[in-house]
């Protein structure tokens, strides 16, 4: 985005949910009107929240296609920022839930139960990122490491539940870190690049 001077002041800032009127320019569209819906002020004001919010926006920005409607992605981003704005005890857990669900919305749905290769009903204890999820004993590479069932359980909750369920994550920090690392690698693999903002997220 190129900044249009100060005409719209604080409305056109990252995190801001705005209602825009655009004029289709030759290469870039031009903002002719901007109405603020919400600025997610609490997310801006706190470093830990701001880092998580930045990672959310960065991931959405990579996955959204220009000139294409992405309703589900947009609604998920709103849900993410709204949940952060409630100042959750574990913002990084909210972020992990968001990222895992974002992968699914973007067409990289992680298969946690049925085998991602042949569809054999699970649960299976091997998960590979490249295959997009769990693999049955027949499809699992012989050197694959089995996943801790506690981690699989958390991944299932991350993928299935509303983000507000992660506000106060009760899990063992070790399990949470393992799940977070898996979610990050999963997204990095499918995005084809690491998320820079993830480095500043406090775990």
């Amino acid at each position, binding site marked *: 985005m190129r900044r249009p001077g100060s005409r719209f002041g*604080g*409305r056109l800032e990252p995190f801001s949910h705005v209602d825009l009127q655009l004029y289709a320019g030759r290469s870039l569209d031009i903002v002719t009107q901007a109405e603020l819906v919400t600025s997610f002020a609490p997310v*801006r004001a706190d470093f830990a929240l*701001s880092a998580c919010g*930045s990672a959310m926006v960065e991931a959405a920005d990579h996955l959204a296609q220009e000139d294409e409607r992405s309703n589900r992605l947009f609604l998920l981003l709103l849900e993410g920022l709204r949940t952060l704005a409630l100042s959750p005890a574990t913002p990084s857990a909210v972020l992990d839930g968001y990222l895992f669900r974002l992968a699914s919305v973007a067409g990289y749905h992680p298969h946690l139960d049925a085998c991602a290769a042949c569809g054999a009903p699970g649960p299976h204890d091997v998960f590979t990122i490249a295959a997009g999820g769990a693999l049955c004993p027949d499809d699992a590479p012989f050197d694959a490491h089995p996943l801790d069932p506690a981690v699989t359980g958390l991944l299932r909750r991350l993928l299935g539940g509303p983000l507000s369920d992660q506000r106060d994550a009760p899990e063992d920090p070790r399990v949470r870190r393992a799940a977070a690392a898996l979610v990050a690698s999963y997204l990095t693999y499918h995005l084809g690049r690491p998320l820079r903002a993830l480095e*500043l*997220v406090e775990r």
Partner: protein
Amino acid sequence: MAFEGPVQDLIEEFGRLPGIGPKSAQRLAFHMLTIDTEDARRLANAIVQVKERVRFCVRCFNVAEQQECRICRDPRRDPTVLCVVEEPRDVMAIEKTAEFRGRYHVLGGAISPIDGVGPDQLRIKELVARVGAEDVAELVLATNPNIEGEATASYLARLLKSMGLRVSRIASGLPVGGDLEYADEVTLGRAFAGRRDL
């Protein structure tokens, strides 16, 4: 469409500057063709001089012509108060207000997770070292009132308060001479939140 040799080189050099797009770069380059050789030489010389003579203050990282900048060398400035800013140009802006009599610390940017700029890329370690070594009791955080500046201020506030320092943030609000009606709601909201007794 490419022009020949030196003209094209100049267009490319201008195009690398912040805020200059290809059109502006071309316009500037052609403007250079029309000005006196003497004027062109003066411009070129000013650029060379600024690179050769100006450096950064070893204490606060403001621009300086000696080891330390003019402000750090001035014994009349209050050494107990530090104002933390993003860039040297912010020092200049605050100096023009004549409101602040302490010293500065220039971070060299702001934390921007999306751009991969974290605390380690800024002069925050140096700030913490200064606070420990100098007689600093109070810090005024004057980073920009945008996402990056606020993330930086929030990070620094947490860090510095844990060291037992007094930390304040400059207010943000309405421009003087402006009109309430035209203020955006984020700015107006801030102005309300930061209101004070009269």
